[in-house]
């Protein structure tokens, strides 16, 4: 039971931290993709979608190369902050965040696209500059969609396995998430423990998706 609780709270914690890390940038990118056009936009859209379509272990391998001791980012963090990223809880957060980005950005983009451009234009003619329009019109009307995106990203981060296994590994007490725990117990033939973690994981995912659907289903009837 103690291990169950520890793994559950660790998973919730890394998913929450990972989601929080990507929210500002993910929302900003969603807005840019919804409202702006620039050369190379299609490349950015493709790059954002990649973690959705390439095998998670492949994403994990890319992160391993970048954030490993000899990787460009890993060396930077080690030298400037004394941080070891791979095979620590930080790697779990990193994998969760990266794998959650596509869901967050796509949902945020749709949320912003659903805010009628005409409302923003009229707000400008009423004397509001671009930032005032964003915070008083665009963001409030997109808020439910953005929250839904955050919840979906959280759910995705919570269920992450492939990239996490590659970059964080299975280190008891340090990197074991619900998904890694399920895999580990199945490998050892400990189906009961695996199913306990499965039920918790499935229950949390169900609640997250349900919340997300409710948020998406009730929006202002912007006419």
């Amino acid at each position: 039971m103690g291990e169950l609780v520890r793994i559950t709270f660790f998973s919730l914690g890394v998913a929450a931290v990972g989601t929080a890390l990507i929210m500002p940038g993910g929302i900003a990118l969603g807005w840019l993709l919804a409202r702006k056009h620039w050369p190379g936009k299609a490349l950015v859209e493709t790059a954002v979608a990649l973690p959705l379509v390439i095998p998670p272990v492949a994403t994990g391998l890319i992160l391993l190369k970048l954030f490993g001791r000899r990787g460009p980012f890993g060396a930077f963090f080690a030298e400037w902050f004394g941080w070891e990223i791979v095979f620590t809880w930080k790697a779990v957060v990193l994998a969760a965040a990266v794998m959650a980005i596509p869901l967050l950005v796509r949902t945020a983009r749709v949320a912003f696209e659903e805010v009628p451009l005409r409302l923003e234009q009229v707000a400008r003619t009423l004397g509001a500059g671009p930032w005032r329009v964003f915070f008083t019109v665009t963001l409030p009307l997109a808020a439910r969609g953005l929250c839904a995106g955050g919840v979906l990203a959280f759910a995705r981060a919570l269920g992450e396995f492939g990239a996490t296994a590659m970059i964080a590994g299975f280190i008891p007490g340090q990197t074991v998430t619900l998904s890694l725990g399920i895999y580990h117990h199945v490998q050892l033939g400990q189906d009961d423990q695996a199913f306990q973690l499965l039920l918790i994981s499935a229950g949390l995912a169900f609640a997250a998706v349900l919340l997300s659907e409710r948020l998406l289903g009730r929006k202002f009837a912007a006419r």
Partner: protein
Amino acid sequence: MKLVIDSLVLSAGRFRLELSLTLEGRAIGLFGDSGAGKTTLVEAIAGLRRPHTGRIQLDDRVLVDRAHDVYIAPEHRGVGYVPQDGALFPHFSVQQNLQYGCRQTQPSGLRSSSGGASFSLAAIAEALDIERLLDRRVTALSGGERQRVALARALLASPRLLLLDEPLSSLDAGHKEAIFPLLQRIRDDFNVPLVYVSHAPEDFVALCDRVLVLSQGKALRSGPPTEVFEASPSVSYRLKSLS
């Protein structure tokens, strides 16, 4: 009000708007078929679209001049805009919508000698008969009520010019009859110049000093409504033939 449009070129997809003209009057009408360029022109005057070339000047103020790299952002033009559906903010109450248009500060030079006056919320609410609507949610308003609130909101922003893009087209005849006198009152009592877009020639006859007829992005003709339209047995008015 004097509106100068000089060598204006604006492309939107395959559509191209090309205009050079001067229009004067208290209320100017824009008439033309769908796709003629009426909304594009209105958006250019409001600053919501940037022309590729040309100049737009409202009275003594240049709003955009591409040749001299002049572009005044929409929030500084003092040009109000009421689109067809009113575009009220659905997450605000009626009162909050109205207060959004009340300018906190007035940049210098935006008020014309004849317009841009400041109106109180109480006066506007009474004039447009929306006092009883102030605490309502926007989503609970009828079409006519929405348009009155949209007009009030635009007026409370102290515009030098009010652009009305088919404000009555989505209303039934009853609501239209109730609102049309309010437009005349805005023009006469509140002294706010209007640019009025419509498909209905009879609207121009009742409201406008001059009408500009657009077709496929170009000016077809302009003049007083009585010169541009003639009475017709089948509809109230129709365009006079050019011959």
